[in-house]
């Protein structure tokens, strides 16, 4: 039988990082994810790995840049305000094509906001955040188990595409405890010798890590190369979960914690005879536009539920492309909708669209 441990999402993520062979972690304390640095400060030295509390998030992301550029498996984590500080470094990392894992345990904003859970960093995560044309693969865990599983997945995808991967969690998933199983993991063999700065032997030309291409002609070539990579990612890495879609007339679209709340709302609604399903995007970039497009031929209405003012709903609408109404319900400020509240909103919407 599988061996389970009871852990906070943040701790499960930290433990998974060790098991995934993370060579170095650089971070800076911020609620609600300080457990990650605390856990790794305690455990990483036992494995002869590097853990460092940097002077700022700006420094930690640049330490990640250095270590990743030298070919090491490297990560950092933070929460919303800290992730904002990292945007410069993330843009450079994407531009220089360095594989690394960044975790955002999303809290509510803007500004200092509050330490309670939020999903207000959706746009920042999937539409850019930093300057320039780049994309991160964005994974959205909805359980403590996924907080662990997506660390392995994240590192592997980062290596596969030479691209930063962001795990977009939230304060609730990070702080809550569930049982978690650390599954056996085999790390894919990746040869980084063609680009990693490990010291130049006589046998090869020098490697250099840079995002600078001052001649427009060369910069565009680099941009096109990145775009081709993002196209590959869009074609091969879309991940989502769907529940009860077979007979569905309505559809919840939600990720992370919101998807968990919607699952409960779905149970309540179905007891009331509303045939509603849930589509949970697991990758927020690339986004499951195609599946939403297909479901738009089946359901009468979709409702995007988020802990923000309505961000992912724009992507749902892109996928649906006007075929059926796409509605939004959200709470902000660290407040969370209750399942009952969502069902109430759903019923109102169904009535509204029926009337019209």
């Amino acid at each position, binding site marked *: 039988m599988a061996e389970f441990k009871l852990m906070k999402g943040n701790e499960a993520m930290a433990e998974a990082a060790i098991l995934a062979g993370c060579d170095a972690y650089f971070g800076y304390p911020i609620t609600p994810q300080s457990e990650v640095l605390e856990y790794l400060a305690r455990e990483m030295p036992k494995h002869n790995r590097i853990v460092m509390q940097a002077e700022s998030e700006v420094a930690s992301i640049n330490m990640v840049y250095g270590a990743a550029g030298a070919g090491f498996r490297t990560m950092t984590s933070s929460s919303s305000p800290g992730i904002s500080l990292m945007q410069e470094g993330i843009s450079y990392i994407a531009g220089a094509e360095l594989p690394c894992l960044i975790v955002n345990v999303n809290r509510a904003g803007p500004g200092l906001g509050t330490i309670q859970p939020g999903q207000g960093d959706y746009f920042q995560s999937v539409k850019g955040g930093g300057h320039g044309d780049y994309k991160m693969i964005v994974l959205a865990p909805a359980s403590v188990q996924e907080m662990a599983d997506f660390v392995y997945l994240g590192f592997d995808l980062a290596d596969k595409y030479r691209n930063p991967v962001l795990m977009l969690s939230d304060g609730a998933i990070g*702080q809550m405890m569930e*049982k978690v199983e650390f599954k056996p993991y085999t790390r894919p063999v990746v040869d980084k010798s063609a680009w990693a700065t490990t010291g130049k032997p006589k046998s090869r030309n020098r490697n250099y890590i840079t995002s600078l291409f001052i001649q427009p002609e060369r910069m565009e070539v680099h941009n096109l190369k990145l775009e081709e990579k993002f196209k590959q990612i869009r074609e091969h890495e879309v991940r989502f979960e769907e529940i009860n879609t077979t007979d569905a007339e309505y559809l919840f679209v939600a990720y992370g914690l919101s998807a968990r709340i919607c699952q*409960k709302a779905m149970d309540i609604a179905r007891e009331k005879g509303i045939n509603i399903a849930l589509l949970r995007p697991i990758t927020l970039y690339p986004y499951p536009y195609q599946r939403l497009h297909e479901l738009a031929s089946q359901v009468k209405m979709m409702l995007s539920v988020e802990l923000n003012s309505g961000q992912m709903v724009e992507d749902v609408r892109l996928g649906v492309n006007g075929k059926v109404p796409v509605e939004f319900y959200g709470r902000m400020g660290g407040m969370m909708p209750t399942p009952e509240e969502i069902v109430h909103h759903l019923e109102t919407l169904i009535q509204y669209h029926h009337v019209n």
Partner: protein
Amino acid sequence: MKNNNQLEELIVAGFGGQGVLSLGMTLAYAGMLENKEISWMPSYGPEMRGGTANCITIISANKISSPIISLFDSAIVLNQPSMDKFAPRVKPGGILLYESSNIFKPSTRTDIEIIGIPATTEALQMKNAKVMNMIILGAYLQLRPVVSNESILEALQKVLPEKYHHLLPINRQALERGESMVLALKGQLVN
């Protein structure tokens, strides 16, 4: 659809330092040892620094959907603000267990079972104020046997660092004390 034996949604609330979070966590751990699905969602942040604290603990035979809920099958409240806040959120037919040496104005609802036990006073008599939460837990498990006492003790053994293992016997006594207090109360009610 929700069979009470299949799913228990519990809130534990009180002051920081009363053992609110560890009560819920011990229960969750015991649930895991019994191969149940569990989730434990704490309030976090400034509450950790001496204010109020609460945690939602869910134990279920099936996969748990939302770890955050607004209505509860049971509530354990250890101070008056928590009583005021959470008593209205117990589902009809649910249980409200409170610490009666701290709370003087319990809820007046009649559609739920309300039980108060003076666990703090009792813990002081046992010469260890910290086992108050275990007395409460023992009482709760008597009312809602969602996990066995054995699992709780096994969970404590795993949760407590080795250097505190000499405290396992007093924790066991506390659990049993809580159990018998509830039994005594129920006996009075029957008589």
